[in-house]
């Protein structure tokens, strides 16, 4: 090979840059040469981009789409576009700002006279919040050809998959789907709670796998609640049609109609019996009709999407478990009587403390807060 001529210098430098063997000085020189020939520079950029694309395929594009699907609040956008970037906190750990703020105004629904009094007594302002800010993009990671979206405790996530299916992921939930998710391959796995608005396709079913059951979409909107360690798997169908099959007995298929809720009571481990036998014997199924909340027409099962926590004659202990997920705290009830209190109400935008104060009006108890730990006592 001949000695490179001067006019070939730019190619040589580009090659060195490509093989990461370029010196800082040469890099500067290359840049000056490219500035003299922007069209060459442009072609060079495209070649580098395509090189990157070789390793970054559909999965990555889907991932970007998912990450960027969430809309940004216009005022936030404006602040950013107006260059007010100085106050950006570099060290902010993610999600910290999603903790309930002590000062956030609360919204009290009129469902119980007592709570109404509480609102008056506390003098809490009624404020509507933009729905936009309710959902934040989840953390996406790629593991073994699977994409994983997780909504951290205390925060929800809304995503749109490549097929147009919309999914709302409740706090502390995890959704996995194959990297090559497409209309032909629509299977996702869920641990936790999610609401699905499936883009229905007659030829390609959408399947949600959970620990205990597989849910096949034959229609449109449904909610699935299958937290790890939870005692039940709940499927609520809002519209369309669904088919649920049990992991432990796939031949058993249940067709669901709109406004039905299917509760699968997960088998409690019992050392006395062989696992297979006990699975059949103890998995209990119950189909009930859901009744919308009269005054507000809210559906209990899907209210979380609008950031509402609805509880109807719920034991305090069970309500505390819901509040733990919602506020990302742990709640310890020290008194057995308090655990059995039956409570009814709706939380909307209350902070944790406001919620506790409202509950104090309808149920006698005291509480103390130690960091992320709430102690409830007599």
């Amino acid at each position: 090979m001949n000695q490179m001529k001067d006019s070939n210098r730019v190619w040589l430098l580009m090659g060195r840059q490509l093989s990461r063997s370029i010196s800082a000085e040469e890099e500067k020189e290359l840049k000056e040469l490219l500035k003299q020939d922007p069209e060459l520079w442009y072609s060079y950029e495209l070649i580098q981009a395509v090189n990157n694309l070789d390793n970054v395929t559909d999965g990555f594009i889907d991932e970007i789409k998912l990450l960027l699907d969430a809309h940004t609040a216009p005022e936030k956008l404006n602040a950013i576009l107006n260059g007010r970037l100085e106050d950006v906190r570099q060290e902010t750990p993610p999600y910290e700002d999603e903790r309930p703020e002590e000062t956030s105004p609360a919204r009290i629904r009129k469902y119980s006279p007592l709570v109404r009094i509480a609102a008056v007594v506390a003098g809490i302002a009624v404020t509507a919040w933009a729905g936009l800010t309710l959902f934040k993009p989840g953390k996406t990671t790629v593991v073994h050809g699977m994409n994983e979206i997780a909504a951290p405790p205390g925060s929800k996530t809304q995503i749109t998959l490549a097929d147009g299916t919309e999914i709302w992921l409740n706090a502390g939930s995890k959704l996995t789907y194959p990297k090559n998710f497409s209309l032909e391959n629509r299977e996702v796995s869920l641990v936790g709670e999610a609401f699905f608005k499936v883009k229905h396709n007659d030829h390609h079913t959408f399947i949600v796998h959970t620990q205990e059951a597989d849910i096949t979409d034959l229609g449109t909107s449904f909610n699935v609640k299958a937290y790890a360690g939870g005692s039940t798997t709940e499927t609520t169908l809002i519209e369309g049609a669904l088919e649920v099959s049990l992991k432990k007995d796939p031949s058993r298929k249940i067709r669901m109609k709109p406004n039905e809720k299917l509760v699968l009571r997960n088998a409690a481990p019992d050392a006395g019996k062989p696992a297979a036998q006990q699975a059949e014997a103890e998995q209990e199924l119950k189909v009930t009709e859901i009744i919308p909340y009269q005054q507000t027409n809210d559906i209990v099962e899907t209210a979380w999407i609008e950031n509402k926590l609805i509880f109807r004659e719920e034991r305090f202990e069970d309500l505390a478990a819901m509040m733990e997920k919602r506020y990302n705290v742990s709640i310890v009830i020290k008194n057995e009587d308090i655990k059995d209190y039956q409570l009814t109400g709706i939380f909307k935008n209350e902070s944790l403390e406001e919620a506790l104060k409202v509950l104090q009006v309808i149920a006698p108890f005291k509480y103390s807060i130690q960091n992320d730990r709430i102690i409830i006592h007599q």
Partner: protein
Amino acid sequence: MLDPITKVFTDLIAENRESEAYQLLYSQYHATLLDFSTAYLKAREPAEEIVNDVLLKVWQMKGNIVEISNLRAYLFTAVRNASLDQLARWKKEQRLLSGIPLRDLTAEDPESLVISMELYDCIRNAINALPPRCRQIYEMVRLEGMRNKDVSEKLNISVNTIDVQLAIALKRLVQAVNIFNKERTLSKEV
């Protein structure tokens, strides 16, 4: 391997740290794109306007970013088109040519800005058409991320030869892309 900047950018968006994501976008690309646009326009002020405009547009089209398979390439394409457009406008003003319709590259469908499969194929074909040794060296660097020294040791060829072979590869690939860009521009004008 992902372009680390794109990765960090998407991570920041994922964590809802949009302002930091924008700051990153700006800090990573603004200066380079400004140089790039200035290279076309030979003037810094209009280049600044173009670059700010492009960064803003990318920011606003977050929902459609799925159309963008490579952020860096997209930004360069958008800045190039806007710069060429500006040049054409100046030319028109200078020569007072009237009646010749102006080709507004910035108004193009964003999809045309995406690195298309055609471009991808074009570059892949060009790589496949390289002389075998040249191609082997290029792929070792490109796919395995090897340095010229690593390749030189592995193939028992001098570092100088590796550099020369890479230069040849790049020259051919750029030629292929130039032809591709020209054809694409021509087909748009028809």
